[in-house]
Structure formats: structure tokens, C-alpha cells
């Protein structure tokens, strides 16, 4: 029987005949003998059966709605207003390809232009691409870009030791291509970058990177100083940023960043077990930088009648034109994730962005205050989302106890930073409820 997704299943005979073939096999006549075989796979099932099957599989997940969770560490439970998903699920957006034919893709092009524009306002840099895979790959591409900008004469990329481990790993892999030398800078007793150590290591660096907030959830106070040190050494200054912070904290572009990377999917997109996401990539309006940036750019222009229109632009940097000499191999990006982010940011507006930052900051502060009652805080400072706490007992024990109380504790940090002891990151966002925190503290009291 014909397949429900394949209309011409029903017309094979007729079509073959029309073009003078006698069988499907004939269409595969050029395939060497023995290659064609029956695969060892299950037969197709009805949509209903697969729906049931997938539902049963998914039943084995426990969501943060079913179990208060204090996990953060780079992935956060933000609430996404329902209209965002509703809009990006419209098939004209959802099922379209990269907008190669501008005239029938103005909707997606404009939406991506708006994404670029909204991010530009947040990060304070005027040139933003239409998305990278995620913060980690954007950061790695930024590192490669700083090396390219130095024409390979400088290969050193300086990063804080307390850069997010996930991103650090991506950077290391990407760095192997052009042979980037990754140099780490220590943190000081306040969990902030050690400026003295930085000064020692910055020599001949192609770029210097820092995150806001840092892996410990702290606002790095000396961002501007770091930028100055980088620039003084002739290095580019790359800032990685959680954009939900930018209603209350100064735009990295204003703090001296040449390149800003970050995670756009915190807006508009659910956690989805970590993907898809969308990496922010922004640079100063400097032809030298623009020429070296990776990824797709949407530009505003005119049509043949002088009407405003949008189109993919500066494509000569990209792989489909420049091939081996492209600035990056990126082709498919995370367009729809970016559009979702744009819709969410537009919905929030200036007031909402500020308020969001404030609510997160206040909730984090409440969480921190309560955590102090039961655990040690290795570092003090202003925390945004994540709070680093240290326990005396093995964290595993604490974790198990919390789980038994239907609470998911924080992210265990020891595997990455054993020097911090039995430390974990507990996070809050605007979605965190007082009763969750109170239940957490009560449960912690029972076990610490």
C-alpha cells in the first residue's frame, strides 16, 4: 500500500511507463551489484502506535515541573510565553529553508534581521550574525577569529580557568585545527579573574576571553580592566554573556568588547535537554572584523522598485562561496531558535528586560541567603542565577537525599574543579518559587 507521506507511491507504474522505464530497479541500474539490500529494521508503524510508544518512553523523564530543580550551570529554566512557540510553529517559518530566494523569504529575512538588531541593542555592538550553534561554539569560533585577525602570527587565546567547562571543551576541540594555544588565568580569592595573573599571561595573545556572569555565578567586576589589559597587549577582547543579564548590567560592547558571544536561546526557547540552542556572535562595526566573522548575515537593502527589502549579505565570507578559505564551515545555523529569541525579546521590551534581570537577581539573592543557612559559600559577590556552595559531606549523599524528597539539587562542580571541594552550583531564575527554595533548605537541613 502507498505510504501516507509519499503521494507518488500510488503512481509508480504509471510514471515509470511515461518515462520509458520498466521498473524501479532500472533506476538503480548504475549501482554495483550486491550493494542493494534489505535492512534489518522494524516495519513501519501507525502514527498512533508511535505516539503511544514515544509517550511511554517520555514518561521516563521527570520534568522540572514535576520536581523542583536547582540546576543551572549554563542551562536555565526560563518561562517562555506561549505565543512564541505558537508563532515559530507556523509552517511558513518552520518548514522553510535558508532564505536563498529573498523575494519569497522576506518574512524569515526580516525576522532574522530583527533578531540581529535586538541582540545588537542588548550587547551594545552593531554587527550581529544570524546565529551560531551555541555559546560554546560561538566562543570557539571567536577564538579562531582572533587568531585569523592576527594572520596566524599570534595563536594564544587567554581564558579564565573558571570558564564554563562545557564551553572550554568545545574551545579545545576547535582550537586543534589551527593549533590555538589555550592559556588559562586563575581566579582570585573572591572567585573573580586574577588580574595580575592575566597580565603575566596576556603577552602575544590573539584574544582574551571572559564571561559575565562567570561559572561561579558571579558578576566579574573588572571586565573593563580585562579589556584594557587585552587591548594594551594587542589582543582582541572577547566577552561571553548571558543576555538575560543585560537589562541591569552594562552592555559588553560598552565595556570594551571587540567580540561578544553568548547564548540566545535563554530567550524564547525551552531547555529541551540542552538543545537546540543558538550562539550569539557580535562584533564592532569594523570592516576588518566583519570580514573575518563567521556565519550568516542578513542585510537591509532595496528591491528593483526602491522598496525596502532584506537579503543574505556579505556571503563571500561563507563556505558555499569561499570554500576552503571561508571564515567558518557553518552552513545550517539555528535560525528558528534565533527567531524565537527575537520574539521573546520584543515581547519583553526595555522594561521587561530590565524587570527580568531584576527578578532573577532578587531570586538568586534569596536562594543565596537561604543556602548560607546550611552551607558555606566559597566566594562572595553579586550572584546572577548560579550560586556556588560547598558542603562538608560528599555531595553525592546530599544529592540522593534531595532526590528522595523529590527535589533536584545543583550541579556537582568537583569533577571539573576538585580544588573547590564538595562544591555544587545551585541556580535560581524568575521561575523559581519561594516554596521550592524553602523545601530545598528544609531538606538540606536534614542532611548536611
Amino acid at each position, binding site marked *: 500500500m502507498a505510504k501516507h*507521506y509519499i503521494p507518488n507511491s500510488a503512481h509508480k507504474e504509471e510514471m515509470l511507463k511515461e518515462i520509458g522505464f520498466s521498473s524501479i530497479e532500472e533506476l538503480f541500474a548504475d549501482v554495483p551489484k550486491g550493494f542493494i539490500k534489505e535492512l534489518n529494521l522494524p516495519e513501519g508503524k501507525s502514527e498512533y502506535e508511535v505516539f503511544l510508544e514515544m509517550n511511554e518512553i517520555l514518561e521516563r523523564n521527570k520534568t522540572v515541573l514535576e520536581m523542583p530543580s536547582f540546576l543551572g550551570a549554563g542551562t536555565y529554566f526560563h518561562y517562555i510565553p506561549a505565543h512564541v512557540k505558537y508563532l515559530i510553529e507556523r509552517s511558513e517559518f518552520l518548514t522553510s529553508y535558508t532564505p536563498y530566494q529573498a523575494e519569497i523569504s*522576506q518574512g524569515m529575512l526580516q525576522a532574522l534581521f530583527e533578531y540581529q538588531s535586538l541582540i545588537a541593542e542588548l550587547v551594545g555592538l552593531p554587527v550581529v550574525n544570524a546565529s551560531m550553534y551555541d555559546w560554546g561554539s560561538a566562543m570557539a569560533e571567536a577564538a579562531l577569529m582572533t587568531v585569523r585577525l592576527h594572520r596566524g602570527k599570534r595563536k594564544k587565546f587567554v581564558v579564565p580557568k573558571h570558564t564554563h567547562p562545557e564551553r572550554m571543551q568545545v574551545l579545545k576541540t576547535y582550537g586543534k585545527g589551527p593549533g590555538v594555544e589555550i592559556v588559562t588565568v586563575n581566579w582570585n580569592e573572591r572567585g573573580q579573574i586574577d588580574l595580575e595573573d592575566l597580565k603575566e599571561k596576556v603577552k602575544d595573545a590573539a584574544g582574551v576571553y571572559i564571561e559575565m556572569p562567570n561559572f561561579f555565578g558571579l558578576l566579574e567586576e573588572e571586565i573593563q580592566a580585562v579589556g584594557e589589559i587585552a587591548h594594551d597587549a594587542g589582543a582582541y577582547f572577547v566577552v561571553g554573556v548571558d543576555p538575560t543579564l543585560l537589562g541591569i548590567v552594562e552592555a559588553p560592547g560598552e565595556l570594551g568588547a571587540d567580540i561578544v558571544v553568548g547564548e540566545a536561546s535563554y530567550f524564547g526557547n525551552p531547555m*529541551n*535537554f540542552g538543545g537546540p540552542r543558538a550562539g550569539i556572535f557580535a562584533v564592532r562595526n569594523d570592516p576588518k572584523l566583519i570580514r573575518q566573522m563567521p556565519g550568516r548575515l542578513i542585510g537591509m537593502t532595496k528591491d528593483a522598485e526602491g522598496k525596502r527589502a532584506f537579503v543574505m549579505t556579505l556571503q563571500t565570507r561563507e563556505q558555499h562561496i569561499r570554500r576552503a578559505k571561508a571564515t567558518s564551515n557553518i552552513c545550517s545555523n539555528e535560525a528558528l531558535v534565533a527567531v524565537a529569541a527575537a520574539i521573546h525579546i520584543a515581547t519583553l521590551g*526595555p522594561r521587561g528586560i530590565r524587570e527580568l534581570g531584576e527578578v532573577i537577581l532578587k531570586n538568586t539573592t534569596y536562594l543565596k541567603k537561604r543556602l548560607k543557612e546550611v552551607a558555606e559559600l566559597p566566594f562572595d559577590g553579586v550572584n546572577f542565577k548560579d550560586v556556588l556552595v560547598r558542603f562538608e559531606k560528599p555531595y553525592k549523599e546530599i544529592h540522593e537525599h534531595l532526590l528522595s524528597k523529590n527535589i533536584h539539587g545543583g550541579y556537582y562542580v568537583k569533577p571539573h574543579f576538585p580544588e573547590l571541594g564538595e562544591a555544587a552550583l545551585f541556580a535560581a531564575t524568575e521561575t523559581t518559587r519561594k516554596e521550592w527554595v524553602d523545601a530545598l533548605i528544609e531538606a538540606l537541613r536534614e542532611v548536611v
Partner: protein
Amino acid sequence: WDEPLIFELSHPGRVGYTLPKPIEDVEVEIPEKLKRKSPLNLPEVSEPEVVKHYTRLSEMNYGVDSGIYPLGSCTMKYNPKINEELANHPKVSFIHPYQDERTVQGALKIIWELEQWLKEITGMDRFTLQPAAGANGEFTGVMIIKAYHLDRGETQRTEMLVPDSAHGTNPASAAMAGFKVIEIPSNESGTVDLEALENAVSERTAGLMLTNPNTLGIFEDEILEIAKIVHKAGGLLYYDGANLNAVLGKIRPGDMGFDIVHLNLHKTFSTPHGGGGPGAGPVGVKDFLKDYLPVPLVSYDEEKDMYYLDYNVPKSIGKVKELFGNFAVLVRALTYLKIMGRDGLKEVSEVAVLNANYLTQKLKGTRGYELPHKELRKHEVVFSAEPMRKETGVKALDVAKRLLDFGMHAPTIYFPLIVHEALMIEPTETATKEELDAYVEALKKISEEAYTNPEIVKSAPHNTAVRRVDDVLAAKKPIITWRMYRELKEKGEVDY
């Protein structure tokens, strides 16, 4: 129609959001030098306006659900809606990647099950589902090749061979991994020139990146020879899965001698392309390469009936993306596979190939379009509009734009580079016979126009939301953001 930018819809005081109140309304002092002082020039709009704005923008966009979308090498097939329903399930949306494995067994099982399907489909032994897209997969693959040779001490293997018909991502990915790219010419049948390949391989050869069928839609029938040459020289054979739709469920890269494969879930496996992403680019390898895969893998402990994140990958190249890949895309692909099954997947490739050959034969012989290379195609076909350009001045670009006037999406144009004025058409298995007939009709009509009234083609499109877009101006005067636009506008440097 015209839809203003969201910034232009802004009115002070309008609000589109609601936020919960903070748990405790304390003042938290942000260090003075970090406080935001620069203005936040974001639009102020209400929710109804946001919804209307993006609804209208969507209506100015063409998708697979709008009509035929035969972009060559892109496999724009129908995206089943059940995929969306399951990908939007709360049990997908609301799980955190760092959750205790015991609380995300469903998610891990999905990743594991999908791997089993992909292994059998490709004839590979282990997969990573981490890469976010095809190019990210290619990068993963060539990094594995690099790691493999280095591991064996063969530091001299610095050259990656790539046919001249390859996707641009192939050389770009190889270059990103630090390889020197050597281009292999095609022969007159449109396949890899064996002699040239023989001459190109050496002890410097790290591998060959190949698609099969290639971007001309032609099956590389000497693939076993090719594999022998590369392997004999000590190189590895890499399969670019962009064209897997042509052989899905019938022919396996693993059986053809390929050592590494990347797939595009957003092409072959029906996940939507979303205007450019998110996709997913899983990479599969033969047994001898599995210790090089990115971490973590997902493994299954049969005894405990538990799935777990497996970091035991001794020679791993590390991570190519954060976390575990584009998980929500994986959910869609697994749903599709379960529904299609063995029988359905085979039907996909058979009808995809039938559709492409049907279109080829119907269009062949039309004035102005030439069919270079072999006639028998797989999932796609590349015509050349070179005769038309020479005889009438109408270029492939013009043909593409004119197609838009017929309410159809254009083919891929000017690719592969080895065909002049290329029109690369891939109908996929989800096009109907009527759509194919209409497409051929439209292309014939355009040919007629080119030879009688070329101006109408050259000035196309005429019936679209905007007329032909000036991409030269866009590159000459880059306006990438509203911020740049405002500046230029203030200076009086733009009139649009």
C-alpha cells in the same frame, strides 16, 4: 505587503509581557561600574501586536507547506506534524541536561534508540548525535580522521581530498580542522576521475570526502575502486550524507567502503529546516574509529535496564558542541523513523529517485536547458541553462526568479560549480506528480519566454512581496541591524 520593523511599531508605555514578582523584594547592589547606563533601544509593543507582526511576516515566507520546494542537495521533504507534537511535549521541553540520569531515562533512550536506527541504515558501528548541523558533523568527522592519523604517528597526513563537485562545507570543514584541501576533478560522466585520484593520493593523504550519489545526482559507480585507492594510500573515506535520501533503506555507505558518515536529520529524516536551522548532523564511524568520537556517548546497561552517559571514549576528540546535541531535533527524527520503518524508508528513496528521473525525462530536450553528464540520476538532477544564457542572455538566476512568479520555489542555482548556469533540482519523494508536471510546464514556459520576451524573465519576479532584491547594494552598504540603519538614516545615507 509591507510590514514595518518591530522597532517601528514601538510606542512608549506599551507592554507585551508579564513576569512573576520576585520572591523577596530586596535591593541588590550592582557595582557601579557594571550598572547598565547605555540605553536599551528595544521596541515597546503589546502581545497582540507581536502576534500580528510575526504572523504577517510568516505570511511573507514560503515553506514546504506552501508548495513544491525542489532545492537541490537540500532534500526539502514534507515535515510530518506528529514530529512537532512530540518534540513540543512537556517531557521534552522541561528537562535539564544535567539532571540525574535516573530522571531522564526517556531522553537517553531516545538518543540510544536513534543511534541504533542510524547504525543499521548506514552500516556504521557507533554514532555521536552531538553535532548541531551537517557542517558541524563534517568537522567532527575530519577531526576524527586527524586524531586517528596522529594517534598512529602519521603526522604527515595533512591533505584532505575533495571532489570539485563537493559541497562548500567539505573543503571548509577540512580547512577548519587544519587540513590542506586537494581538489579532485570530475570526469565527463560527472563522477570522480580515477586517474586524477590515483595521482592525488600519497602518504600525505588523510582522507577523501565524498557524497554518493554526488551533487549532480549521479551514483559514483566506481565507488569500490575509489575506496580501494584511498585506503591503499592509507587514507580514510568520509561520506557526506547530504544525499542519503537517494539510497535510504537500500544501500549503505558502510557497505561501500566508507569509514565515517555524517547525516543531516533535517534533510533525510524529515525534521524541518526552520529557515536555516536547527538541524542535526550525527556522525557514524566504523568500529576502529569509535574511540575517537566526541564525549559523551549514550550507552545501555542491559542488566539494570538503564541508559547512561558514557564518557569512556579514550581517544575522544572532545566536544564539538555543548551538551548532547539538538535533542528536540532528535525526537523528531526518531518519530519519523518509527513511522516509516524498513518498508517506508525504502519507499522514500525509490520514489525520490523516480520523481527526479521523471522530471529529468520530462524536461530534457527543452530549448535552452542542457542535461550534461549521464541521464540516469538518483534523487536530483542538474540542468545547465548555459545555452539559454548564450542565446538569450537569460541566466539561471533569472530562471529561478521567474519561477517564483509561478508560485514555486526555485531550484538551487550555480551549484555544483562544475556545471555552468546550473539548475539543481531535487523534488524529493513528497512531491506529487501534478507538482512535477507543473514544474516542468513552468520551466518550459520560461524557456519560451526567454526566446520570445526575455525581458520578462530578466526582470522577474513580478508577483512577489518585493521585486528583485538588490544584493549588490546590500554588500556595498552593509546594514546588519536597526542600530546601523538608524545611524545611516540620521546621516541621510539611506532612502529605504
